[in-house]
């Protein structure tokens, strides 16, 4: 059961979107998110919907994966919608007990919900089409210019890489520990929530101790392979921005201009 956990939600593919430079994709997603907050009309969101749907079609991601990514935030959506509908002052449309729904509230609620949905869908397209490693590389390269003002770009990327590398290893280990404890009579499936939480302690303690030992050994192995931080380091994989990337950037800018023109 524990093995089913996947890291990120990358869907390998070979579409134009998949092949874009990760740096460009991160920049495009950022522009998209900013644009979402600039738009203030439903017409604008109609443009966004068409644009996003087109991008998803080009990237060949099945729509069900997009909907899947919305599932975890369903409650946030409902909460935001209800809160906005009830708490915005305006002309009362309906009354539920002591609370009243206003016309402005409904308008704002719809707005907010749509905005959050596009936010998630847009960023999902990024994580669905970019492997975690490419994302890490992209973030490192984008942060590189900020090294001068003290942003630890290389260290951040290295931490992310090591985390990605060790998640499957630690999942395997957790599985082993659970089995070992079960074999000695530990019960993880019954009892109330507090008892179950307590039962996790005999899993977490060995897991933590082992991870520290692993970290120690890994540090040693890295030093033995001449690791001394990002200084003077080269990378095997080189990223090249080609005409597809420029094209994507142009399309995105065009879209931003159109959607901003729709502002009221």
């Amino acid at each position, binding site marked *: 059961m524990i093995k089913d956990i996947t890291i990120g939600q990358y869907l390998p593919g070979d579409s134009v979107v998949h092949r874009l430079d990760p740096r460009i994709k991160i920049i495009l997603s950022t522009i998209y998110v900013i644009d979402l907050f600039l738009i203030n009309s439903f017409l604008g969101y109609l443009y966004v919907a068409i644009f996003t749907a087109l991008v998803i079609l080009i990237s060949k991601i099945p729509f069900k994966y997009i909907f899947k990514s919305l599932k975890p935030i369903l409650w946030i959506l409902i909460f935001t919608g209800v809160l906005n509908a009830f708490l915005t002052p305006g002309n009362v449309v309906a009354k539920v007990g002591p609370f009243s729904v206003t016309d402005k509230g409904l308008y704002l609620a719809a707005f907010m919900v749509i905005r959050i949905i596009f936010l998630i869908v847009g960023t999902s397209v990024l994580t669905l089409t970019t492997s975690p490693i490419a994302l890490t590389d992209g973030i490192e390269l984008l942060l590189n210019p900020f090294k001068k003002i003290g942003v630890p770009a290389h260290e951040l990327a290295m931490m992310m890489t090591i985390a990605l590398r060790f998640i499957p*290893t630690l999942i395997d280990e957790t599985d082993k520990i659970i089995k070992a404890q079960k074999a000695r009579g530990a019960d993880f499936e019954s009892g109330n929530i507090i008892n179950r939480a307590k039962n996790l302690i005999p899993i977490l303690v060995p897991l933590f101790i082992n991870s520290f030992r692993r970290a120690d*050994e890994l540090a*040693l192995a890295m*030093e033995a*392979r001449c690791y*001394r931080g990002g200084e003077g380091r*080269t990378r*095997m994989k080189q990223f090249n921005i080609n005409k597809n990337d420029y094209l994507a950037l142009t399309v995105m800018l065009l879209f931003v201009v159109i959607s901003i023109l729709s502002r009221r």
Partner: protein
Amino acid sequence: MEYMVEVNNVYYSYRKHEQDKEHLALCGVNLKVKKGEFVVVIGHNGSGKSTLSKHINAIYLPKEGDIFVNGMNTRDISKLWEIRQTAGMVFQNPDNQIVATIVEEDVAFGPENMGIDPEEIKRRVDFALRSVKMEEYAKHAPHLLSGGQKQRVAIAGILAMKPKCIILDEPTAMLDPSGRKEVIDTIKKLNKEEGITIILITHFMEEAVDADRVVVMDDGKIVTEGTPREVFSKVELLKDLGLDVPQVTELAYELRKSGLNIRQDIITIDELVEELCRLR
């Protein structure tokens, strides 16, 4: 310079816990390894063999005495990275020495740290993966490989740094028999074909049979050394140290003890067969 590694009268001690008294891990170790030699170090747990191996990579510095790697003193801080590049080190647990999430990226880790040109790194990675016969797994995730394959990736990661010497600290201890064979075959091939000096630390006696020299350690000292034949013929000494000899050697030893007139220095199955046939 004739020697790849020169260990001159080295002492090393450490404390396991703050309040413990100093534990002498190495006391007066002398070892000279020739270029291109295949040396196996055996000894039971706590004999100091692992500590010695970490000295050669300048992870530990001796309390007394000196260690030279290809003529460079490990105390010389300015040579530290050159030493680590010359004498690469492979550790016991393959999981804990693989850094990247893709095999070829992990192999590239060492050369990347050395600041080598990307094109050259690519060539080295291809070469290293071919040398350990893992080229078809270049794009795989390391956690999906078997233990033996992971350890070969780790060896490739060292190879890509173009070392002159590889130190392997019980590389087969966590592997199953087939994984063990893969790794040992790879090591032997590197020694023969690439001329890389190998220092293999192990407690599997069978792995020592094909070495140029076997060094036996106990309690921080080198007890005996010589060709595998010389060392394994001292069955009683090894047993006193709590070590095994290869199974055939043991069988020959027992047969000899019970009165059979066979040679004392048998280390392979073929030799024993020959001896037994000669008896009739």
